[in-house]
C-alpha cells in the first residue's frame, strides 16, 4: 500500500517515462500480479513445454527456436536497461557480438566445452560493457540511446574491418560444442537443450536481480532520479552496474548464438540486430521480462521464417510493425494482459486510501 502510493506520487515527477511507470507500481517484479506459487508453476510448465519441443519437431524448427532463445537472452539484457532502468539502448548488439566472437575464438583455439565458451562470452561482454559503458551512463533518455548507438556501431565497424577477427568475412570453422568433456553435441536437439538451460538460468538470474533491492533502486532511478539521489542512492553507479550486467547478459546471448550457428560475422552485431532487440522489448512490453522474450521469438520468426515466404522482405514488415506498435500497443504484449487486474489493483488501492483518511 505504501509502496503503491509512493509509486503513484513518483509518477508525476517522471515525465520521461509515463507510459511505463503509470501502470507499474514500484514493487512489481515480472508478473507481479500472479501469486508466487502460480507464477512458479507457470514458469516450470513453460520450460517443460519448451524442453519437449525437440521430441516432436524436426531439426529445422528446433534450430530456429535455438536462435530465438539465444536472441531472447540478448533481449532480456536490453529490457534490463530499457524497461527496468529506463535507459533505451541501441548498442547491446555490440556486446552480443563480443560474446559471439569470444565463443568462436575459444571454440576454435582452446576448447569445445560449451560452458567455458559461455563463461568466456559472459566475461568479455562484461569487460566490453565496462570499458565502453562509462561514456554512455552519464547520459539519460534519448542521448543515452544515441551514445549507445554510436558505441555499438563503432564496435561493429571495428569487427567489420579488423582482419584479426576475419574482417567482413567473419569467423568460421568453430567445432561443435561438447559438455563435461563428453562427445560433440551434433544433433540440433542437444544444442537446443543446452541453450534452453542457459537461457532459463539467465532469465531466473535477471528476474532475481529485478526483484532484489538493487532492482528496486533501478526502477526508482527510472521513475524519479532526483528523489533517489536525495535519498542517498548513487544513481550513476547503479546505472553503470546495470549497464555492465546487461553487457554480460548480452555476451552470454552472443555465445549461445555462435554455438548454434558455429559461425560469426559482423552482421550478427550490426544496427539491425540492435534495432530488432529494442523492437522485441517494445513489442513485448518494456519492464516485463516474459513479454520481451515472446517479442524476441516473434521478431526472429518474422525475420527468418516469414521473410523467406514473402520474398526476403522481412525488414519491410518489421518496419511497419515498429510504427504500428508505437501507435497501437504503447505497452506491448505485456500491456494487453493484466490490464484488468491492474485496474482492480488501482481502484482498490484508492478505496483503501479513502477509508484511511
Amino acid at each position, binding site marked *: 500500500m505504501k509502496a503503491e502510493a509512493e509509486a503513484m506520487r513518483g509518477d508525476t515527477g517522471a515525465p*520521461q*517515462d*509515463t*507510459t511505463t511507470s503509470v501502470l507499474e507500481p514500484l514493487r512489481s517484479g515480472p508478473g507481479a500480479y500472479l501469486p508466487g506459487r502460480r507464477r512458479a508453476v507457470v514458469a516450470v510448465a513453460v520450460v517443460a513445454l519448451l524442453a519437449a519441443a525437440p521430441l516432436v519437431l524436426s531439426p529445422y524448427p528446433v534450430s530456429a527456436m535455438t536462435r530465438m532463445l539465444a536472441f531472447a537472452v540478448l533481449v532480456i539484457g536490453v529490457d534490463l536497461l*530499457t524497461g527496468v532502468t529506463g535507459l*533505451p539502448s541501441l548498442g547491446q548488439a555490440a556486446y552480443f557480438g563480443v560474446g559471439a566472437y569470444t565463443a568462436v575464438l575459444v571454440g576454435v583455439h582452446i576448447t569445445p566445452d560449451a560452458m567455458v565458451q559461455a563463461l568466456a562470452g559472459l566475461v568479455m561482454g562484461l569487460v566490453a560493457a565496462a570499458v565502453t559503458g562509462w*561514456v554512455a551512463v*552519464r*547520459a*539519460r*533518455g*534519448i*542521448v543515452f*540511446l*544515441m*551514445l549507445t*548507438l*554510436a*558505441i555499438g*556501431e*563503432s*564496435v561493429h*565497424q*571495428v569487427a*567489420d*574491418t*579488423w*582482419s584479426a577477427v576475419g574482417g567482413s568475412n567473419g569467423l568460421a570453422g568453430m567445432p561443435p560444442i561438447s559438455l563435461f568433456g563428453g562427445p560433440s553435441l551434433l544433433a540440433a536437439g542437444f544444442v537446443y537443450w543446452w541453450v534452453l538451460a542457459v537461457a532459463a538460468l539467465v532469465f531466473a538470474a535477471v528476474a532475481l536481480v529485478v526483484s532484489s533491492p538493487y532492482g528496486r533502486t533501478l526502477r526508482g532511478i527510472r521513475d524519479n532520479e532526483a528523489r533517489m539521489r536525495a535519498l542517498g542512492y548513487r544513481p550513476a553507479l547503479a546505472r553503470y552496474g546495470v549497464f555492465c550486467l546487461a553487457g554480460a547478459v548480452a555476451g552470454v546471448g552472443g555465445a549461445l548464438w555462435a554455438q548454434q550457428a558455429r559461425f560469426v560475422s559482423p552482421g550478427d552485431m*550490426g*544496427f539491425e540486430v540492435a*534495432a530488432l532487440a*529494442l*523492437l522485441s522489448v*517494445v513489442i513485448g512490453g518494456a519492464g516485463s521480462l516474459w513479454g520481451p522474450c515472446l517479442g524476441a521469438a516473434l521478431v526472429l520468426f518474422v525475420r527468418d521464417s516469414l521473410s523467406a515466404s514473402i520474398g526476403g*522482405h522481412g*525488414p*519491410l514488415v*518489421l*518496419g*511497419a*510493425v*515498429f*510504427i504500428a*506498435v*508505437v*501507435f497501437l500497443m*504503447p505497452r506491448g504484449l505485456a500491456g494487453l494482459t493484466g490490464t484488468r487486474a491492474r485496474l482492480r489493483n488501482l481502484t482498490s488501492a484508492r478505496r483503501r486510501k479513502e477509508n484511511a483518511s
Partner: protein
Amino acid sequence: MATHLVSVLNGLAMGSLLFAIALGLSLVFGMMDVLNLAHGAVYLVGAYVAVALVSDGAGVAAFVLAVLAAAAAGAVLGALLAALTRATTHHLDQALLTLGVALVVAEALSLAFGNDVHSIAAPEPVGGGVTVLGETYPVYRLLVIGFGVVLAVAVYVLVERSPLGSVIRATVADRAMVAALGINTGRVLVGVFAAGAALAAVGGVLAGPILGAQPGLDEKVLLLALVVVVIGGLGSVRGALLGAVLIGQVQALGTALLPEYASFLVFGAMALVLLLRPAGLLPARTGVHA
C-alpha cells in the same frame, strides 16, 4: 607531403558532405529532442535518386535535376517524419517511429534498385582531374569542398543573421517561451525537419560520385552523422561544422596513414571528446537539455 595533401582534400570533401548531413540531425535533436534514426535512410533516398536520374556521361543538367528531385523527396520525407513524431510525446516512441520508417524506406529502396552496389559518375564537365601541387585530383571533389564552404556561410547567415534564424535558435533554447510569444513553433519544427532531411538527401546525391549507393550505406552515414553531432554538441550549428571537418580529417588521414585502425580512430576521437567535453566541443550556447 603531396599524398597527405590529397588526404586532407579528401577529408575536406568528406567533411563538407558530413556537415550537410549532420546539420539536420543536430537541429532536429536540439529542437524537439527527436533522434531521427531515419536520417541515414533519407540520405540513401538521395543517393538512389542520383542512381535513377544520373546516367554515365550525363551532363550538369541531369545532376542539377537529381539534386532538386532529391531535395523535394527529402523534404517530403522530413515533413512526414515530423508529422509522425509529433503524434506521440514519448521520446523513445519517437525514436522507434523513425527507426521503423528507416527500415521501411531502406527495404523499399532495395526492392526498387536491388542489392547491387551502384556507382554514380560525376557530371561530364567536371569528371576529370586537375593538378594540385603536382598531384592529380578530381575536380568534382574540389567542387564538393566549395559546396561545403558555401553551405556553411549560407547556414551561418540564415541562422545567426536573419529573423527566421533567431526564431530557430530561440526554439532550440526554449520552445515554450517562443510559443508564448505567439510564434507557431509547430510550423518552425516541421520546416526545420523538412529542410534538414532535404539537405541530407542532397548530401546523398552529392556524395554519389564519391561513395556510390548500396544497401547498408544508410547505417554507415547515420553513424558518422551521429558521431559528428556528439562531437560537435547537440543542437549546435557551429558544432556540427567543426565535428564534420574533424571527422572528415580523422577518416581521410586515418585511412591513408593507418588503414588498419581507421575505424578505431573515429571511435577514439568520439571517446576522447566525450571524456574531455561531455557536452561536445561547441555545445549550443543555451545548454540544450535532453
